[in-house]
């Protein structure tokens, strides 16, 4: 009973394992069945958790915009997304004429699958981790690339010019922002000396956001771009590209894109919490694993909340601004950050962790100040002609004769 309360997942696993063994099933099959049940629970659980996430995000954005948000169905409108889900199940699936059927139908599955696959390596508490790969970070990067494949397949398969343009733009943005993201992921790996996510958590006696805040900020912003949310949502800029690469989708196929978007935002926050906020660590999490689960959830919701606030309050960048921001600011800054941190840390060779963290923090601060000073020097805001003092065109009473010299018809 004590173990069940402190660590229910392990307790249930052991109970199920002994139950299957007692039925006389061979050991290999027991393991296989356990893996299948585990991954089914994680996948289905994540997808149902999205129901809560959608409600939560609509509610927060509603409050930001001085609205109530969903408030009709159930207490605080919490059943609204369940009703939406039931409705979208009965919507017609319209396939546009001339669509490339295989990529068109595969894209929503692939995008949703790519987000779900990330959950395989993320440690949810001390004992609850799907597979603690020793190349966990590399796995996350690789799976991130799979989602981009889904985007281009959706755009290509739809036989629609808007989808195609949106997919190209989305792809350019996604692959560009992967560079600073992967570069800043290097810093936790460097400091902990491990690529397994549990190893990184175990090494975080000082949270890496305290040691390397600039790296954390760049990582956070590039993750927002990777997810494709405001202010980086050129991929679904309603005012220019209808709805982005998923314009032609309907029914649950569209629903998959929608769910994948929300789940990806949460998963990105989860990865951030693991890499920079110490994952499940906190007072008492070593002894009672279930407490660690709540710590991780709190940290993730905090990061996610900041993301939602940014989404609700910042206007959209143009695509050229986004590319310039990435290639001319984030990438050079993160390369410099990696170079300086590795050099200074190795040259100083401090053995005590707290001094080491302070030194890395100082390097981060210096890079931050220098890069923003350089930004001030090299980027000049273009002067726009003042509207107030300009001579405004005035309507004239009598219709003017056409002036043949100027070549402009009035």
């Amino acid at each position, binding site marked *: 009973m004590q173990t069940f309360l402190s660590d229910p997942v392990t307790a249930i696993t052991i109970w199920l394992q002994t139950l299957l063994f007692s039925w006389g099933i061979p050991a290999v099959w027991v*393991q296989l069945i356990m893996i299948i049940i585990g991954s089914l629970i994680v996948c289905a659980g994540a997808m149902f958790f999205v129901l809560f996430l959608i409600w939560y995000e609509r509610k927060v954005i509603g409050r930001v915009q001085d609205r109530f948000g969903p408030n009709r169905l159930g207490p605080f409108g919490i059943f609204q997304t369940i009703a939406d889900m039931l409705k979208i199940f009965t*919507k017609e699936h319209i396939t*546009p004429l001339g669509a490339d059927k295989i990529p068109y139908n595969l894209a929503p599955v692939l995008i949703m699958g790519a987000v779900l696959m990330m959950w395989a390596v993320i440690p949810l508490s001390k004992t609850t981790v*799907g597979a603690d790969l020793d190349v966990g970070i*590399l796995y996350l990067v690789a799976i991130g690339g799979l989602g981009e494949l889904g985007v281009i397949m959706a755009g290509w398969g739809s*036989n629609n010019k808007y989808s195609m343009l949106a997919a190209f733009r989305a792809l350019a943005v996604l692959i560009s922002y992967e560079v600073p993201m*992967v570069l800043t992921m290097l810093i936790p*790996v460097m400091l902990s*000396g491990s690529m397994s996510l549990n190893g990184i958590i175990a090494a975080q006696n000082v949270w890496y956001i305290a040691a390397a805040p600039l790296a954390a900020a760049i990582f956070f912003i590039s993750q927002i771009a990777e997810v494709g949310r405001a202010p980086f949502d050129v991929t679904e800029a309603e005012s220019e590209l209808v709805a982005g690469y998923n314009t032609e989708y309907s029914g649950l196929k569209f629903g998959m894109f929608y769910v994948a978007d929300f789940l990806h935002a949460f998963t990105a926050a989860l990865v951030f919490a693991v890499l920079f906020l110490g994952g499940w660590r906190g007072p008492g999490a070593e002894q009672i694993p279930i407490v660690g689960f709540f710590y991780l959830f709190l940290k993730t919701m905090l990061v996610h909340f900041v993301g939602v606030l940014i989404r609700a309050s910042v206007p959209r960048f143009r*695509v050229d601004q986004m590319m310039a921001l990435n290639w001319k600011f984030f990438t050079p800054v993160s390369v410099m950050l990696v170079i300086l941190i590795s050099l200074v840390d190795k040259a100083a060779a401090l053995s005590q962790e707290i001094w080491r963290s302070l030194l890395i923090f100082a390097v981060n601060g210096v890079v931050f100040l220098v890069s923003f000073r350089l930004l001030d020097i090299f980027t000049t805001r273009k002067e726009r002609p003042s509207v107030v003092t300009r001579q405004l065109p005035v309507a004239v009473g009598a219709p003017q004769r056409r002036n043949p010299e100027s070549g402009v018809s009035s």
Partner: protein
Amino acid sequence: MLADWTYIGIFILVALFVPAIAITFAAILSPRVPGTLKQSAYECGMESVGKSWIQYKSQYYIFALVFLVFDVEIVFLYPFAIAYNQLTLFAVLEVILFLLILVAGLVYIWRKGELEWA
């Protein structure tokens, strides 16, 4: 170790299987009333002109090339990052030299003006 990769392999299959099942289930539930107008490509009510699989701007191609160079080099940096705590200062300097080559590539393409989204 092998058990971990078995888990990953099965997890990938399940992660693709769950949305596929959901979509299939919805496809069975949903009505099917096709029509030419309904199924035509959505272009804000206009008739679609020409093919939609158009030739795209070469700018995308250049960004993809730059990304490829960066990403491959960064993957080379991960072994260094893992071994970082055991390395000597000299080895770190060597890796920094490697990174500076990367920076030189970025500076080259920046000076050439390929990073401008024209």
